[in-house]
Every structure is written in structure tokens, then in C-alpha cells.
């Protein structure tokens, strides 16, 4: 059996939305795994040897072999355990290409615009990042309509798929954005399908088991902001 009964270990950090993606995929597939919380301020030898290039979480270790980068990990989980649970990517090559397209869009447009919101110093920079992220989210609304066949269920159709996992990993942070910055990223008045998607996603057992508590994420992000401001003040 592909994947075999080998052991699965996930190196992560509780707040990371990228780690959440990996957890979602593992839970959806019903795959047992050992979770190791890494202290990113004091990285373990296993972590550093498993991801020497980026030194970031998540890292999935399967039978002692490491896989890095959340989207690569999610695809690996789908590829290596084909008979287990429901496939995350559809069978049809064209539909797979569409799913991969939107996955890439989430990375290149949503995440890339959004990450600076938590790092930039001026309000202008933050507003610009928020504006770009919102624009990207609006495009995703159209994508959801297209992918779910107008039913607005999941990007994967009737069941959760690859794109749902990649966006789903971000949900607690999507919700945290409003208390943190004042901008609501998924607003039912602007992107009703995505708002409904988010509610539906959060109702899933898998989501309840894995998604971080939003207040905890807000607290984490605020502490991070303070630390970044302090370190940049010290460096000036």
C-alpha cells in the first residue's frame, strides 16, 4: 500500500496557519500522526536538519523523510495515501488544474498581500496591504462560485478539497484580522459565498478539532507586533 503504515510526524507551531493546513489534510484523511510543537526561538536539531533550506514550519516527516512547504505537504498527503479517505484533488486533469490555479492564487495574491499587514509600520502601508488583500478575496468569491458549481458549498464541490484546505488553514487568522486591524476580510455583505463557506467550513468536525481559537491568535499577533516594534526600535 502506498504510504504504508509508516509513522507520520508533524513539526509545527500552534499559531501558524500553514501548519493548520497540514493538520486539516491529515485529519480529513483520517491519518494518525505525532504532533511536535516547535519553539521557533530555540529550534530543535530535528527541525533544523529536516528543513535546512527555510527553517520554517510545517515539516511533515514520513518514515523519517521530511516534506516541507504547506502546499507541497498537502499534495503529498493526497498522493501518498491514495486509498485513504476522500481525495483532495479531483480526478479530472482540467479540474485539477483549476484547483491548483486557485491554490496558487491564494498563495500569490491573498497570503502575499496579507502577510505585510502584520509587519508594516505605517498606517498607509497597512491600508494598502488590506486593500490588496480585499481585492484578492473578492476574486476568490468568483472562484468559489465557479468551483462549487454555483452551489457555493466547497471549492472541492460537495466535499472539502485541496483549495478548501489551503484557505481553511487561514480561517482563524481571517477572523482575527478584524480585531487586529479593523478590516473584515470575509464580509457577508461583500463576499456572501465566502462568508457562507467559512461558516460551513467551521462546522466540520475536522475544523473544530484543528482550527485555532481566534482570541488566542489575536493575542499572539498583538504580542508579535509589540516584539517586532521593539526590535526595530532597538535596531534604529
Amino acid at each position, binding site marked *: 500500500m502506498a504510504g504504508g503504515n509508516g509513522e507520520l510526524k508533524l513539526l509545527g507551531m500552534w499559531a501558524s496557519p500553514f501548519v493548520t493546513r497540514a493538520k486539516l489534510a491529515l485529519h480529513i484523511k483520517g491519518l494518525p500522526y505525532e504532533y511536535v510543537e516547535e519553539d521557533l526561538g530555540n529550534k530543535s536539531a530535528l527541525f533544523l536538519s529536516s528543513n535546512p533550506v527555510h527553517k520554517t514550519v510545517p515539516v511533515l516527516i514520513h518514515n523519517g523523510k521530511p516534506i516541507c512547504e504547506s502546499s507541497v505537504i498537502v499534495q503529498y498527503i493526497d498522493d501518498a495515501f491514495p486509498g485513504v479517505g476522500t481525495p483532495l484533488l479531483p480526478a479530472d486533469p482540467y479540474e485539477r488544474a483549476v484547483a491548483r490555479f486557485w491554490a*496558487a492564487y491564494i498563495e500569490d495574491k491573498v497570503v502575499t498581500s496579507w502577510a505585510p499587514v502584520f509587519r508594516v509600520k505605517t498606517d498607509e502601508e497597512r491600508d494598502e496591504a488590506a486593500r490588496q488583500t480585499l481585492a484578492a478575496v473578492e476574486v476568490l468569491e468568483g472562484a468559489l462560485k465557479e468551483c462549487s458549481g454555483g452551489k457555493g458549498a466547497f471549492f472541492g464541490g460537495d466535499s472539502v478539497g485541496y483549495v478548501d484546505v489551503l484557505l481553511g488553514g487561514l480561517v482563524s487568522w481571517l477572523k482575527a484580522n478584524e480585531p487586529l486591524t479593523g478590516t473584515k476580510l470575509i464580509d457577508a455583505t461583500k463576499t456572501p459565498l465566502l462568508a457562507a463557506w467559512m461558516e460551513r467550513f467551521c462546522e466540520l468536525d475536522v475544523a473544530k478539532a484543528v482550527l485555532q481559537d481566534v482570541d488566542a491568535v489575536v493575542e499572539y499577533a498583538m504580542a508579535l507586533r509589540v516584539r517586532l516594534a521593539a526590535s526595530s526600535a532597538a535596531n534604529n
Partner: protein
Amino acid sequence: MSSTKEEAPAVRVLGLWASPFVIRVLIALRLKGVEHEVLEEVVGKKSELLLRSNPVHKKIPVLLHHGKPISESLIIVQYIDEVWSSNAPAILPADPYVRAVERFWAQYIDDKFPRGIRILKGTVDGNKDEIVEQLSTALQLLEEAFLKLSNGKHYFGGDNIGYLDIALGSHVGWVRAVEKIAGVQLLDAAKVPHLVAWADRFCAHPAVVDVLPSADRFVEYSVKYGSFFPTRPSLPTE
């Protein structure tokens, strides 16, 4: 009963010869022996067909298969591999773990090379020395990856070119061009000997040789169109 109007070919590529992302698609199609038509875009002016086919990014390459558009070069390469799966060779490796490793490096390559090359070309502002350092480090890591993945054979994919060969190899034209433009050494035989040998083999491969022109042609292109895009270019490429 024959139609008086000629049907559009089943497989069409919207592209620009100088785009490494387009080159990837052409290599994949040639590797699989798929008949296709290439529609060359005009630099600085996006066609109606392109805008209609890729409304989200408005970028090349776009593969049109029976009129259905597929965008993003590595996604297109995977699509080609999956649709023409009965045509050898396989582009993606069969083993899921090796596949994950190749995907990891393909992502790494596209994080580093496109931007780095733009800076060395001078179309985007940046610290050239820093970029040379970054790209040299990247090539060093790729040299090590090559040794592990090739297992003594000619390509990252083993006996034949595969996904990672295409992902990296498509950048070789511009890498060699910016070596001349910026007066730097990247594919240095003293530092990355296996990659240098691999690059020569890759460029000579039958599926590559007619779609990956010499470095001089890329240099000419840069000279011709460089002034059109003084800062961040809105090139039709990815």
C-alpha cells in the same frame, strides 16, 4: 460533409519565445510529442484572446486545450503530464516522496530566479551583489539536490528530463544572458560542476533545443525591450 471553416487546433499555446514560463510548456508538449500551435504575443500589447483566456492574471503562458484555458506554467506542465499520461516519458516522478521533493525545489526556483534575473537585467531595482550571492547559494543547493535526485544519471528526473529539469532548465537562457549583461558568473563550473554539465545536456535535449535559444538572443531581447520597462515591468509573462 466537411466544414468550410478550419477548426482551431486542439492544443494552442499563447506565449512569447523569451519567457522561461512559456518555454516550460513548449518543452513539455515536445517531450510528449503533442501537436500544438504557438500564438506569439506582441510585446507590450496583450491580445484579446489572452485577456479572455486568463482574465485573472492576463499573463502568458496559457494553454488552450479544445478551447479550455489552463494558466500558470507549472500547472500547465502537470496538466500536460496528466492528460497525455500514456505518452512516455512521465514528467512528474511516480514516487510521491520524490514528487514532493521536486515540487519543493520548483517552488524554491520560482521564488529566487525570476526576481533575481529581473534585478540583474536591470528592469527592476535591487542590490545586484546581494542577488548574485543569493542565486549562487541557490545554485549550490540545487547542485546538491541534483546529486541526490539524479542518482548518477543525466537529469534531475534520472534518465530523462522531468518536472524539476524543466522548472530549472527553462531559466538557463536568462541566467546565461544576465551573466553577460551584468558581468557576473552564476553557472560556475568551479562551484557547481554538475549543474553546468546538466545545463549543457538539458539545452541540447531534443525537446529543448528548438525552444530554448542561445544566451545572445536573450541579451538582444533585453536590449530591445529593456527600455520599455524601466521599473517594475508589466510584461505579459508571469
